[in-house]
């Protein structure tokens, strides 16, 4: 039987990258898998995508998905600036960026905040495991206060909540998820890639080698036992037709469903679970995040959403053609233009 294909006639295999060199069982590999599925399910054209990353275990992963897309494994903490430049040079590209908690929360905090401030339209995934893997097990800035690690003892610093930082910075799409929750990660990725603005996904992604003890809030056992999704998430494409016998709708009281309309006409359908969170409310998003941090509640899902601000290319009022593909006549003014400037600077 031939493999199932998407509307481009491509099989899921064709969205894969090179084999992963991460530790077997690493949470990051599950996220790479979800990225492959997302691009396959949505039928994205790989040549229109770029994959960027900083430095660290997480940042190796762009080599492991979407082999048909240009990738750039840049500098530690500096991927946001590279994304800014690449998307200014070619605003038609879709950018998927992968970072880690060290890459974003420590060395890259400045660039993280500023890329959001500029509203560079890209998907910014933080594969957050609370620990530095490649340098063998130091605490990161997202590690819990009081946590114990084999070589470095007890962490005495409070954690930085990167989702909260994103909301404060003015990000218009902020989500948290768990790499063990494939369905939710998939739904959030499908929504984020449609969002014409910076979207931040803080995905807790356990490090099986250095930080997977049950006592760690970034471990598999902890995540599996403690994850509390805020909603059930479903992405409805712009051409989505509501089935007559939509069971899930029937299961919910009116008002228990939030349909968040996205810029391209698609909807994020959120079915309320045991809470009142409305991601369109910024105050609520910050409250949820602060409470989650204080009381160590592992809330996941779409935390905050708002209609995107103008992107950087809009703010810069750029021409339609991507700058990288302007022709020579658009790049070099005519001789008379230079003569005019020279004339204005001359005697008399």
């Amino acid at each position, binding site marked *: 039987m031939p493999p199932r294909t998407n509307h481009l006639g491509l099989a899921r295999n064709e969205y894969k990258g090179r084999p992963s060199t991460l530790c077997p069982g690493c949470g990051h590999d599950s996220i790479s898998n979800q990225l492959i599925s997302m691009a396959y399910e949505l039928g994205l054209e790989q040549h229109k995508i770029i994959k960027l990353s900083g430095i660290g275990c997480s940042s190796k992963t762009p080599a492991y998905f979407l082999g048909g897309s240009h990738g*750039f494994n840049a*500098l530690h903490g500096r991927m946001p600036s590279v994304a800014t430049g690449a998307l*200014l040079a070619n605003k038609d590209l879709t950018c998927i960026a992968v970072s880690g908690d060290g890459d974003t929360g420590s060395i890259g905090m400045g660039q993280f905040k500023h890329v959001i401030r500029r509203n560079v339209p890209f998907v910014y995934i933080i594969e957050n495991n609370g620990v530095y893997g490649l340098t063998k097990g130091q605490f990161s800035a997202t590690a819990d206060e009081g946590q114990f690690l084999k070589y470095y003892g007890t962490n005495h610093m409070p954690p930085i909540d990167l989702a909260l930082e994103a909301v404060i910075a003015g990000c218009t799409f902020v989500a948290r998820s768990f790499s063990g929750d494939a369905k939710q990660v998939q739904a959030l990725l499908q929504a984020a890639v449609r969002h014409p603005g910076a979207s931040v996904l803080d995905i807790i992604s356990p490090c099986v080698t250095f930080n997977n003890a049950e006592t760690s809030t970034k471990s598999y056992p902890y995540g599996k036992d403690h994850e509390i999704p805020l909603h059930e998430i479903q992405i409805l494409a712009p051409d989505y037709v509501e089935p007559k016998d939509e069971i899930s709708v029937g299961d919910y009281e009116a008002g228990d469903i939030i349909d968040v309309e996205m810029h391209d006409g698609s909807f994020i359908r959120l079915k309320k679970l045991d809470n009142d969170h409305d991601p369109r409310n910024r105050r609520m998003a910050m409250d949820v995040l602060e409470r989650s941090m204080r009381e160590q509640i592992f809330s996941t899902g779409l935390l905050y959403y708002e209609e995107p601000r103008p992107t950087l290319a809009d703010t810069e009022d750029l021409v339609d053609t991507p700058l990288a593909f302007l022709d020579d006549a*658009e790049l070099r003014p005519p001789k008379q233009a230079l003569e005019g400037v020279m004339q204005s600077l001359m005697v008399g």
Partner: protein
Amino acid sequence: MAINAQTQPKLDTREPVINDFAFSVATKNGSGSQTSNNVLVKALFQMGIPVNGKNLFPSNIKGLPTWYTIRASKDGYTARKALTEIVVAYNNSTATEDVANLPPGGVCITTDKIAKVIRRREDISYYEIPVAKLMRQTEIPSAFRKLVENMTYVGAVAQLFEIPLDLIYEVLLANFKGREKPALMNHDVVKLAYDWTADNLVKTDPYRFERMDGAEGKIMMTGNDAGALGAVFGGVNVVAWYPITPSTSFVDGLIGFRGLRQNEGGENTIAIVQAEDELAAAGIVVGAGWAGGRSLTSTSGPGISLMAEFAGLAYFAEIPAVFWNITRMGPSTGLPTRTSQGDLLFTHFLGHGDSRQICLLPGNLKEAFEFGWKSFDISESLQSPVFVVSDLDLGMNNWLSDPFDYPDQPMTRGKVLDATALQEFIDEHGKWGRYMDVDGDGIAYRTLPGTDHRFAAYFTRGTGHDEFAVYSERSDDWVENMTRLRLKMDTAREMLPQPIIDDSSNADIGIITFGTNEDAIREARDWLANDGIKTHYLRVLALPLASAVTEFIDAHKSIFVVENNFDGQLTQLIRLEHPENISHVRSLALGDGLPMTPDWIYDSLKEQEG
């Protein structure tokens, strides 16, 4: 009146000195003197006199002493001179020192108030302007009075040394972009002082200006504006920067000339982003260069320090991007508003590991413009970052130049494969790899993101890689790649702008330099020639050094390397690249924070040559 009673005016019997003397204007920073000084320089320029204005200013917004030197030279010498014959002493805290620095027979123009505190000399002329009294006669609202007060010395200078008032008004109008109200407000003060000087002072010095045609057809501009204009004609389309003296006005220039590249709807073909720091600015231009943009950042030494890691990445991953380093005096924060050529070695070797950056070294406005556009062609052709190393003196001061030539070469985007070309490449070579050197010049073929071909994608990385850009820690892959990069630099050597050489006089002595020292050297060489000492001259325009430099060194008995940094960095580079037979190479390195003078070169060379 009391002022005149202080001196016994006697008519000057010396020969008149016309269009060949220098001014120093001493004021307090932030007092509005920049406009006054620009007006003087531009008025002299409009009189057709070869002129150069150099701003020697402090790192301060308001209050610290600042000097502006203006040199007029009928013979076209526009280097800063060690001595100025005339001082406008408008800063009470430096006035005594300013007067002490004058040569015998010099001139001091000052205010009546400051005149009271100056330690006076008998061998110079004094002109005292009653600034406060004059200002009281104006109708100018008190809020503006302080800002235009300095126009009183413009008026006095115009009267004493014969600059036509109507010219001053024209220049003022241009300075205020055609707005009459501020131009008139300033001009009223100029005229008041001009008339008062005529009525109350007797000229006791031999200096005056006269119209000539030494500036006809010339333009006046700063090097930062020239470089920015060049970039606009070179197709720059992504600019990222962070404010830092003395490079900020480079980006101001880009913003000013951006309109030359807007489409009919007023949309931009140049994105200009003020980044959060220089590190991010470097990341933005590297990201843009990778995606096919013509990207540029402009900064100075401290910014270059922050850009080091990205510079190394771009060198190793082979990504084009243009970096302007408008050098100021280091190390550290150093003298942030003083000029220097002290970043030569740092910029050339920027990045950890075995990296070497291509540098272009403009020495005048024309080269600033030319390298402004050419740097992109070089960067894309070599798939490498290009550093244009200018300095504060060229960048921020007004220079005289012939008009710029329109680019004489079409734009070249280097070895970029679109989908069709990629297929042809694969048909010819069986496969394509990002770092495959099929031409033997060290330069491989790249594809841009967005290229619709199933084999177009590759993975850019700063880690070790093979010729397919795949991660590799193999020693043979590493060495092969580094060998190719070295070959690429050797290709660059002869492809880059070649040195300017004057070896026409059968001399034994050769002078080597780079950048903005040329005017001072030209004048010093003329003085030396008058003493019977003939010299040849070579100015380096690019790094890595061309083989012509070696040939020049070998062809002379005695070589002096003249540069404006403390350690003699070009000399060190020559020793590194050309270690044999260089006992005759001597370093004349200055590095005092000021533009070089012919006096210093002449004295130093004579002393060393014995």
